[in-house]
């Protein structure tokens, strides 16, 4: 398949890094390099990726309570998810007929996450160029849509997934909430630290196990 390659250009200064908390619990991001990186996109066009990155940054902003979707690389995560089995509903029951149903029976539509994003993004043309207040207003208009609820869910996933999935860059999301990633043993700690924070340094699955684990979106 021949297709035009799209890239998302990100500044290393805003991607991942180490969180440092000051005494009043304000988080500061430490980053050493300032060279931009070009990340090849698997599903989005560059414009779509810029809109998703901007929208995710309003859902999970970088602000005084710490870094957000921009530093975690959420747009890269969502791009990879949509390119993989999740995006094309590989494991969902998609046989006809599609009928409307009460909410309790779950999503009954035929549109895949890819189609929901592609359609939803058409309604956010120029979004990346708006000022934050205008962006928030645009998002409030689509708050009740399936696209927006997917975007919120996928943004949280991209904040806190294992970094092998393309989000949570530098384990910034895990640092934000004090999650240490997959620790092989908490045997000595589980019944200590009662009422006190135990915050070991985060390790990714690959670091923790020493294995070259493949994320499911890289499988055919």
């Amino acid at each position, binding site marked *: 398949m021949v297709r035009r390659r799209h890239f998302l250009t990100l500044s290393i200064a805003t991607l991942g890094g180490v969180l440092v908390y000051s005494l009043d619990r304000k988080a500061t991001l430490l980053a050493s390099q300032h060279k931009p990186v070009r990340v090849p996109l698997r599903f989005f066009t560059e414009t779509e990726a810029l809109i998703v990155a901007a929208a995710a940054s309003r859902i999970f902003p970088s602000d005084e*309570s710490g870094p957000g979707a921009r530093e975690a690389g959420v747009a890269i995560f969502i791009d990879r998810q949509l390119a993989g089995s999740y995006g094309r509903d590989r*494991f*969902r*029951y998609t046989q006809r007929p599609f009928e409307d149903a009460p909410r309790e029976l*779950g999503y009954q539509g035929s549109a895949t996450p890819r189609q929901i994003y592609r359609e939803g993004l058409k309604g956010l043309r120029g979004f990346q160029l708006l000022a934050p207040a205008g962006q928030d207003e645009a998002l409030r208009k689509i708050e009740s849509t399936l696209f927006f609820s997917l975007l919120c869910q996928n943004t949280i996933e991209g904040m*806190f997934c294992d970094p092998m999935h393309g989000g949570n860059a530098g384990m910034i999301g895990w640092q934000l*909430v004090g999650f240490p990633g997959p620790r*092989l043993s908490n045997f000595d700690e*589980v019944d200590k630290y009662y009422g006190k924070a135990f915050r070991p340094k985060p390790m990714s699955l690959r670091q923790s196990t020493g294995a070259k684990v493949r994320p499911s979106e890289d499988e055919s």
Partner: protein
Amino acid sequence: MKTLPPVDAVIVGGGWAGLLVAKELGARTSLNIVVLERGQSREPSDYATDMDELDYAIRLRMMQDLSKETVTLRHNVTRSALPLRQHGAFLPGAGVGGSGEHWNAQVPRFLPDCFALLTKTTEKYGAKALPEDHAVRDWGITYNELEPYYTRVDKLLGSSGKAGNLKGRLIEGGNIFEGWRSEEYPTPPTKMPYFSTLFRDAAKSLGYHPYPAPSANISQSYSNPDGVSRGGCTYCGFCARFGCMVGAKAQPTNLLLPIIQKRKNVSLRSGARVRRILFDSASKSVTRGVTYVDASGEEVFQPASLVFLASWTFNNTRLLLLSGIGEPYDPATGRGTVGRNLTHQVTVGAATAFFDQPLNRFMGSGSAGILFSDFDRDDLDRGPLNFIRGGYFAARGYGFQPIGAFGVLPNSIKATWGSEWKKASVSYYDRTATIGFAGEHLAYKTNFMDLDPVYKDALGDPLLRLTLDWRDNERKMAEFATPIGVQVAKAMGAREINPFPGLRSYDATRYNSTHIQGGTIMGDSPDHSVVSPYLQHWQLTNLFILGGSTFPQNASANPTPTVLAFVYRTADAIIDRYLKHPGPLG
């Protein structure tokens, strides 16, 4: 269709029930046995690198592939059923080991009176105590008959806990409301996460009787009677929806598979999707074997002298219906037995509590925690709420991961995205946990399973259709449990509390539990049941049906130990009696 050489026994389903009967018959007899598992093959070593929340807990990598087959659901017979297109209220597993691989390994026993629910309730309170259109049945067996098998299950799993009733002697610190145990747990209770200790102290201060949750994520290394050794739990927190990285969690692949693999008389075929059970149409008293689509896509006939159906509640029921075995249940007339008594479980988060101090919730296991069963009895004052039965309260330190746990906020905070939401979510992230309640779901004439008239699986066979809704008894039970959960949360020092909002219609999008029962229930008469208490089909006497599909109704407790106890009892009866004199086991 190709016909394979006959075998002595074919087992449909390679999960807890199927592999336990394969191990028992395989190790104790020379029968030639084939296990047919429709999912993939699996080894315990597969789990060394599975601690990835996204792929396993969110994308549900270990669950059944719904693109091939799901179930349909409607709330009552006046509605059309629609397919459950994605997982939600329950999570049936796929592959060798089945749901026994990704479970939480909670191993309580059922209360003795559950087995005679109809008789005991009627005796005590009169027939009017039960809801008008209930379908509650006795099991045709007593707890006393089952107790030795429960003890074998505990030894197989190495269950960790503290007995509350040893041969009738009540012991403080254990569950004093449980049925008698002939022996103490094989291993001591697990370590306790912080949240569970707050719950224990609060429950005790309120006069309840908290005890350590029975756990098959074992507290220390243990070697079971089969010679299988496991190390203790490391409280990594990756249990539910994961296989155990260190093998401390009891799973079919670490307890049963190693023994089966050593037996030349047992073979396990993965990727084998069973479509029909064939039976002798003249006599209608024997099955001839099963047909299945093998891993290469070819449909084959596997003749067998004994057939075991052990493919979880849905598929056990569906295979009988597809095969034309027995009379499908008709709710209009009450006739027929296949598909009746569909029950789930009243599992609610009674109170979600928000604390000032951090809880370190990433540490724990699927079954490390504290329970109390003071309301899991039938002799309670329920005040103005007119309902029967009850359930247990729980504070487990499951081991929380951030995608699933982020964004749980006090009801006072309305924002669902943006700065305010993010700030609150970050601040509450490790300061919130839920007090759970698991209550009995009664059987009703209107909750049942049959074949869907519209939707098909990937092979063109009809999907199973569930007709299921909550009734007043369940709604009132949840209403009763909620203020108790709130009371305990207050005593734990919670700053804010979200009470459970109440049960309305059955919601297939909210995870409830993977405890679904009925469809091929056991009983003391073929008029009301599909199998005898030996799990033997009443008409086709060489067909045995194993698993939660044989439970007449849900009990509050988690079902796996009861499933396994019945499998042991059936295996014993087959080895000791049936093989010598095939026919009805009385």
